[in-house]
């Protein structure tokens, strides 16, 4: 059974059909790419998967359970984490606190414990610090744990966003244009990081990307979206050389 199962997904905003009859099936452990020209509805699909929008019709199942109608925070707890196209960090909080905020449901103590700083507080906070630093280490961010998130350079902010998403211990990680605004060097580095993340955290990854080198380099399977509908699904090589796909991107 596929980890993520989406069938006939559709949403309308007034008269606009942003996503229509969209199907995707992502297997456990896969690195799956979702590509398509600008305005094709890729981010809308992400927003549907994470509960930001409620689909007009269709089925979304994670590990066999329907997640339709659930709120974003519930979906996160069920196991879908995401990053954003335009970075959304907790800017006035430290790098460490950004990750610790995402550990909210992993390591818990009561409100009374919070107000009075009872013994479980220090114990769990230490545990949280260790866990957060462990995650930050994977991204080479542990040395900047105390830095304010807004003071990080762009590339590191992107990494921190991925680190924060992983802290929620997801089954499925959605990356929305992780390489946007990066130079070829940084993109190369990011490809390595994404591979590493998949293996180390045993997470399934679905990513949106415009950088075809990255897509061809790491994705094992691709779905092309055009005008809100699925254009083609298959192995990267076949998909990227397909005449329909090239037409969708470049025109006739």
């Amino acid at each position: 059974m596929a980890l993520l199962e989406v069938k006939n997904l559709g949403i309308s905003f007034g008269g606009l059909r942003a996503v229509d009859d969209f199907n995707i099936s992502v297997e456990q452990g896969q690195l799956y790419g979702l590509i398509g020209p600008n305005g094709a509805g890729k981010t809308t699909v992400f927003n549907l998967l994470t509960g930001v929008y409620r689909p007009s019709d269709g089925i979304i199942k994670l590990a066999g359970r329907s997640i339709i109608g659930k709120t974003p925070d519930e979906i996160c707890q069920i196991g879908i984490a995401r990053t954003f196209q335009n970075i959304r960090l907790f800017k006035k909080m430290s790098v460490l606190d950004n990750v610790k905020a995402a550990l909210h449901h992993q390591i818990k103590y009561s409100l009374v414990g919070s107000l009075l700083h009872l013994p479980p507080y220090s114990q769990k906070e230490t545990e949280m610090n260790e866990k957060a630093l462990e995650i930050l280490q994977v991204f080479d961010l542990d040395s900047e744990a105390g830095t304010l998130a807004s003071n990080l350079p762009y590339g590191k902010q992107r990494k921190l966003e991925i680190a924060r998403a992983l802290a929620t211990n997801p089954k499925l990680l959605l990356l929305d244009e992780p390489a946007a605004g990066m130079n070829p060097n940084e993109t190369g580095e990011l490809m390595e990081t994404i591979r590493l993340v998949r293996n180390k955290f045993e997470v399934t990854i679905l990513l949106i990307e415009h950088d075809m080198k990255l897509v061809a380099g790491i994705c094992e399977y691709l779905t092309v979206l055009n005008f809100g509908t699925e254009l083609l699904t298959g192995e990267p090589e076949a998909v990227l050389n397909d005449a329909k796909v090239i037409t969708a991107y470049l025109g006739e």
Partner: protein
Amino acid sequence: MNRMKLNNTITNIIFIIVSYAAVSLIVTSGILSRQMTSLIIPIGVNIILAVSLNLLTGFLGELTLGHAGFMSLGAYTGALITVNTELPEMIGLPLALIAGGVVAAIFGLVIGVPVLRLKGDYLAIVTLGFGEIIKSVLTAMEFTGGAQGLSGIPKYTTYKNFTIVFIFVVITILLIKNLVYSRHGRAICSIRDNYIASEAVGIKISKYKIMAFVISAFFAGIAGVFNAHNIGILKPDNFDYNKSIEILVIVVLGGMGNIKGSVIAAVVLTLLPELLRDADNFRMLFYAIVLIAMMLFNNSGLRERMTSWIKSKKQVKTATGGE
């Protein structure tokens, strides 16, 4: 790490003891005029109000203009208990404090739920309206004494009995500070920084917004009880939007999300009108001017420039081997 924490705790305890000693010295020795001394309680009340409002505006990031409403609920609840029951002070005052806090907290919940969907200026307007509604209801009701006010409240918490107020000021600061540096506090701050991302990492926004509203209102209610038992008479007009704005000014001046700043600003801004008493008719004008000057000093980078200037002076001194 643990050692640093211990050191911090010790510094805090010493600071609390020293400030308690200073306050009791001022009260018992009578070095200051009676007017100044009697400001001890309003200072404490304003600290509690400012620190609790800072939880909403500074940490949750929501602009609210109804804090005086919560305060008045606490004040009237507490006063009605001590006025209408014959309980001795030892029981009456704690009961009034708890009841005042709880009633305000309940209204925090009541107002918190409907305003969850509002943000920014819309929330500010709704909370402003809430404060005015409370005021109107208090004026219209008979058991609250109407516009005449509620008088004959036992003066349990005047400056002579400052200890209990002092204790509650410390408790308020500690609890809110503890809250901020916890997983719940992080959740609240993350909502302020980016509520979409906050939801995306699994934080239930509505729960934490309401939590912040309830806790903040609870302490505002307690501040109201102290206020009532200090002045001895309550009038709905004392809790209009001017009071809410006064508290907001303290929070903004002290710095959003800065508890220490709120405390200092509460002390300064409570004393200021009294210090300016000699200026007579121009008192409020000077008050406003000082306020503007302080805001500019705090926000225009003037302070940073000055500290760096002092630092560079020091460096020159050490470089040349002092005098």
